[in-house]
């Protein structure tokens, strides 16, 4: 799998993401700059990592969504390419219109820096193939604006089409209000595009990929990707 990570001014999680991808695939991902206008030949996966692109000016991800590389990413997604957005990357995907909805200020108004648990809602995707349905895994959240919002019709469509990939839950898999720290609609932590190839999520699975550093809860996501996108 050839992965490319895109950096914007203010991106700060690209190195962790690169380590996670390298651990799963055995090869270093390409690192692109927001001013680039094309993706490396043969790219299988584009990753928009976390951080505070453009200082979160105007709205989180709003400036990044208008940057030159985004046109290439739109084209790539349109051709059926896989795009993963984590945290600020998820915010970029909704601002760019690649996923529906928006991410509002956390309901508590507090920046949340803590572990959370997510329940895997479907496993027939490149991102979740190494998990069991209903499996709960731990990840770290670190965001001020992660409160997923969409109008009721959009939420119903997401649910109806099975595009909710991940939901905030307790460690034993209960989808409760207290597990939903940022106040997201219907406990939504991550959503998929209709072709299941674009995934945006707020928590950071790349934080937990090393047994020596906080465990490997997030590793199946990257290993699943490496397996699903391996050359045939």
């Amino acid at each position: 799998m050839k992965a490319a990570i895109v950096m914007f001014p203010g991106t700060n999680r690209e190195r962790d993401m690169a380590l996670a991808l390298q651990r799963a695939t055995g090869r270093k991902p390409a690192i692109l700059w927001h001013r680039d206008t094309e993706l490396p030949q043969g790219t299988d996966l584009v990753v928009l990592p976390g951080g505070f692109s453009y200082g979160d000016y105007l709205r989180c991800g709003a400036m990044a969504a208008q940057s030159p590389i985004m046109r290439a990413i739109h084209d790539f997604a349109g051709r059926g390419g896989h795009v993963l957005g984590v945290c600020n990357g998820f915010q970029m995907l909704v601002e760019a219109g690649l996923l529906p909805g928006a991410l509002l200020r956390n309901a508590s108004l507090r920046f949340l820096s803590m572990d959370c648990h997510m329940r895997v809602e479907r496993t027939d995707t490149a991102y979740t193939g190494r998990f069991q349905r209903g499996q709960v895994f731990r990840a770290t959240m670190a965001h001020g604006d992660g409160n997923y919002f969409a109008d009721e019709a959009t939420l119903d469509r997401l649910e109806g089409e099975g595009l909710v990939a991940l939901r905030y839950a307790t460690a034993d898999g209960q989808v409760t209000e207290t597990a939903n720290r940022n106040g997201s609609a219907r406990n939504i932590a991550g959503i998929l595009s209709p072709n299941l190839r674009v995934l945006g999520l707020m928590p950071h699975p790349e934080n937990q990929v090393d047994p020596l550093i906080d465990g490997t809860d997030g590793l199946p996501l990257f290993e699943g990707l490496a397996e699903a996108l391996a050359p045939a």
Partner: protein
Amino acid sequence: MKARVTVMPKAGVLDPQGKAIGHALAGLGFAGVGEVRAGKVIELELAETDPAKAKAEAEAMARKLLANTVIESFSVTLD
């Protein structure tokens, strides 16, 4: 020509910032404050001199970038 774009959270969209401001006002002893909503104002200096065109231009900017119409509504006034 100057255009002023006012961006507000849509009705029904949670506005925790507005709520916090409301609580703070109540804490300061300002009674009788109902709902508080917080938005932002963006002022644009435009080269366009025709008011109708300037307004249309500012509205296009608001739709494309200044407001996220999933969660925000906007209005444009000219000075």
